[in-house]
């Protein structure tokens, strides 16, 4: 377990209007790590995917709580967790496959693929009926450690 240098925790209802806020909040928090523009865009994109999954899949017919925790760890590593208490993912391996979606025509099935390619590590914990936590890590290359 890496020691945390700084963190934020946010909670919001699963309304699509919060997607932009969530990715901006994560990017603003990460800005103290002095990331490059590309790194900021990577963080925004991955957070957008994870939050959208919670909104579309965890709570398909209702509004529930989504929480976002962003943490700066030693070694200038950003860790972001997006957690919901929704319906869960019955088959994680299947959900991670490119082009697989249960979200219908408006979705591409590329969410996890994009999170994987924009971040360094992605772990998914899910219990059907209890909820899902997606944790992503990215090393921010531009500084030696997370403290200014």
């Amino acid at each position, binding site marked *: 377990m890496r020691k945390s240098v700084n963190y934020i925790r946010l909670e919001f209802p699963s309304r*699509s*209007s919060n*997607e*932009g806020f969530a*990715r901006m909040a994560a990017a603003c928090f990460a800005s103290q790590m002095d990331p490059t523009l*590309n790194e900021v*865009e990577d963080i*925004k*994109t991955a957070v*957008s*995917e994870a939050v*959208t999954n919670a*909104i*579309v899949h965890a709570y398909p017919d209702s509004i529930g709580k989504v929480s976002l925790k962003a943490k700066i760890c030693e070694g200038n590593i950003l860790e972001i967790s997006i957690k919901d208490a929704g319906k869960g993912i019955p088959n994680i391996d299947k959900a991670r496959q*490119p082009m697989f979606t249960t979200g219908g*025509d*408006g*979705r*591409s*099935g*590329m*969410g996890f*693929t*994009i999170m994987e*390619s*924009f971040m360094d590590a992605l772990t998914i914990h899910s219990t059907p009926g209890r909820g899902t936590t997606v944790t992503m890590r990215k090393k921010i290359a531009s500084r030696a450690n997370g403290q200014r």
Partner: protein
Amino acid sequence: MDIKMQTADRNLLLELSGELDHHAAKDAIRELELAVDAALPRRLLLDFGGVTFMDSSGIALLLRAKRCMDALDGSMQVCHVQPQAKRVMDAAGIGRLIHIKQEGTV
């Protein structure tokens, strides 16, 4: 998300601007379908020059546009894609299905 439309000689140009996430894509996909249904174009050009952010919801929009144009036996192109959107398109491998070019006019 704002979409501007131009048609000329059964070419349809749609200029998208703003952030294309799941929140915006729902309306954008509907608008795109209405525009294609009204114009019945031979060629669709999607100008992404004003798209400041895109996630996989943009991929869903492109796939839908491709399906609309395939149904009409027409073609489609995407132009002026900004770096962040291009990296999302590359990660999704959309370039194998859809022609993405850097310069373009109808």
